[in-house]
């Protein structure tokens, strides 16, 4: 009872109680009714028991039978995927672009750091193989 509830009227409660507004329920009646309800509920419970077996076969047994295969397979797949990622990331090391010596020479000429008449000498000095190819 909360504090906001009205106070109980003891006198009224006494009169109501003594007026025997509802007849007492005897144990014999309760027992008979209990048996009646149990009998009426038997088909519903049997139906549930049958449905329960089917449900167990289709859900739990299915999961249990496949868990022995699927769990190791899942773990192995995850390990393999991790290994692949590790190998691939190791192969792709970032590298600075390699500039050939002839390219450096040509860039030097283009930016006037090297005069054009000295270009061939520069190329020969810097990259003998490339210079030989250009003379031919």
């Amino acid at each position: 009872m909360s504090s906001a509830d009205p106070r109980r009227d003891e006198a009224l409660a006494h009169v109501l109680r003594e007026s025997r507004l509802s007849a007492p329920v005897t144990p014999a009646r309760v027992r008979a009714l209990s048996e009646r309800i149990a009998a009426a509920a038997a088909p519903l419970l049997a139906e549930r028991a049958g449905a329960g077996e089917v449900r167990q076969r289709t859900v739990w047994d299915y999961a249990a039978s496949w868990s022995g295969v699927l769990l190791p397979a899942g773990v192995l797949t995850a390990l393999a995927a991790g290994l692949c990622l590790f190998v691939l990331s190791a192969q792709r090391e970032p590298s600075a672009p390699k500039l050939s010596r002839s390219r450096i020479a040509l860039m030097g000429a283009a930016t006037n750091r090297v005069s054009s008449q000295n270009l061939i000498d520069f190329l020969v000095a810097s990259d003998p193989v490339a210079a030989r190819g250009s003379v031919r």
Partner: protein
Amino acid sequence: MESAQASAPQREFLRPVLLSDAAVEEQRIIESIRDGNTAAFGQLIERYLPRALGLAMRILRHHEDAEDLVQDAFLSALKHIDDFDPARPFWPWMSRIIVNRGLDLSAARSIRSTEILGDYVADRGSSPAMDAERSDIFAHVRVAMLALPPRRRLVIELFELEGFSIAEIARLLDSAPSTIRWHLHVARHQLRGALAHLHGASA
């Protein structure tokens, strides 16, 4: 006195917190019933049938009707047991089924008379004149109570006799607490009026 003893288990009605062991046990029973366990359903009946029958009698005031109502409520609870959350206490759910169906039945069979209950049993040592007067008072109270609408009658009985709080009755009858307070106020007014009229007539 007999009726007071019979209604003692009903004081447990709608108690929001069950003992943890009892709650766990009840949860196990519900789970077993879901799997179709007959013995578990028997345990549920044994646990709640007296309270359920007491509540049904308060609403319908007729043994056979109350028994039919309780049977119907238990079977309905079994059919819809998958909708019930086993983490919550079972009795509030069950009692709501009984009250809703009981009030519908009560409204439908308003023409049918209620059972004639036993007359007042005389106390030892009281005079025949006193017995006759008391019997007259209680008969008038019964008539006044039966004149109340079923919902209002249930409110005053649950509050005055069973010791439920306004909030508990409001939850049970799916009404606002203010509505329950109003029903209680009007019912008390009508009953006190009937008793005062009786006193006036005898004076």
